[in-house]
């Protein structure tokens, strides 16, 4: 039996098992009603079958329920999120943790390219990326142009800046912007402050 044939049989059995074991998420009909819940469940099931994280999709649907959004819009938004999760996974690889994919999907929504995601992943090999991707999107929300935010985040992750420092950076940028600073100036100044503190330098052998 070839390796391809063995994999085919294994996958077929796995799909049968997964299909029967996957139950509907009880939160959805409770908050959305049976009909809308069923439409969302189809998207969630397809995401699960594709190996994508499903909780962000459920959360997005529940958020829509809280906001009393029209059902079609909830379904469309969840579908778009699923597509962004798939694009993130294609860019970053199949063994990328779900949290990283979720944050990468947010960064894609903010206008980041898949190339940027890959470059940030290469700058921080083997370490979680959820927070850098999320901070990138949050910087764009503060008014920093997406290319600038991406370049800053790449520089900061390359320099080995910690998650805590990245989170702190966002808060400082937000404060500066609220105090009247132009967003790009605030972001680059605060980024430089972080870099000066952690001492960006060429990697040197131990």
């Amino acid at each position, binding site marked *: 039996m070839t390796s391809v044939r063995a994999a085919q049989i294994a996958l077929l059995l796995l799909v049968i098992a997964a299909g029967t074991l996957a139950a509907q998420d009880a939160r959805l009909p409770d908050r959305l009603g049976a009909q809308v819940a069923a439409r969302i469940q189809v998207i969630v099931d397809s995401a699960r079958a594709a190996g994508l994280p499903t909780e962000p999709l459920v959360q997005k649907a529940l958020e829509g329920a809280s906001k009393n959004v029209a059902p079609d819009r909830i379904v469309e938004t969840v579908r778009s999120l699923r597509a962004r999760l798939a694009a993130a996974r294609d860019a970053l690889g199949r063994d990328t943790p779900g949290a990283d994919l979720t944050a990468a999907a947010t960064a894609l929504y903010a206008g980041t390219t898949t190339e940027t995601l890959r*470059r940030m992943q*290469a*700058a921080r090999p083997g370490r979680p990326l959820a927070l850098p991707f999320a901070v990138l999107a949050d910087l764009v929300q503060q008014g920093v142009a997406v290319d600038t935010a991406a*370049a800053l985040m790449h*520089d900061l992750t*390359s320099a080995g800046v910690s998650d805590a420092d990245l989170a702190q950076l966002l808060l400082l940028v937000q404060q500066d912007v609220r105090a009247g600073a132009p967003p790009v100036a605030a972001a*680059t100044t605060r*980024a*430089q*402050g972080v*870099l*000066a503190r952690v*001492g*960006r*330098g*060429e*990697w040197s052998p131990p």
Partner: protein
Amino acid sequence: MAAGGDGAAFETLVHRHYGDCLRYAMRLLGARHDAEEVVQDTFVRAHRSLPRYENRDRFRAWLFRILVNRCRSAATAAARRQARMAAYASHHPTVEPPPSPDAERLARIQAALRQLPVRQREAFLLKHVEDLSYEEMAALSGQRVSTLKMRVKRARERLQLLLKDVYDD
């Protein structure tokens, strides 16, 4: 063997050629993270193109064709990025230990290289550092041997001008 998709064989190729690729990329682009990214990209593309590799080419020269192309694509963005980081550093200098004489000399050489147009820098590095023949360089870049010789000559002249006292003790 690696062309058949044998994982271990390709890994061996990575281990064998990573250092040279990184050296070329660092000398051309001037910064480590840019170089590391480009080299990673090169090996992934090489793996993808393996079915098209014909064993009669020297593998290193074939790999360098991909590397040189990747470096060209990255050179402009890398230069912009380094200018940005230099601007940061000039506003907020950090205190660093003084570099060794060797490190200082290498930094001067690197700075002189950066003053060359990318094509001259490329030709100089391929000829004098990576030790490719002009024929290999021509196959890799699609340029005529005469053009490449002219670029190397101009690079040598400019570097001699910029570095004439770099070895004076």
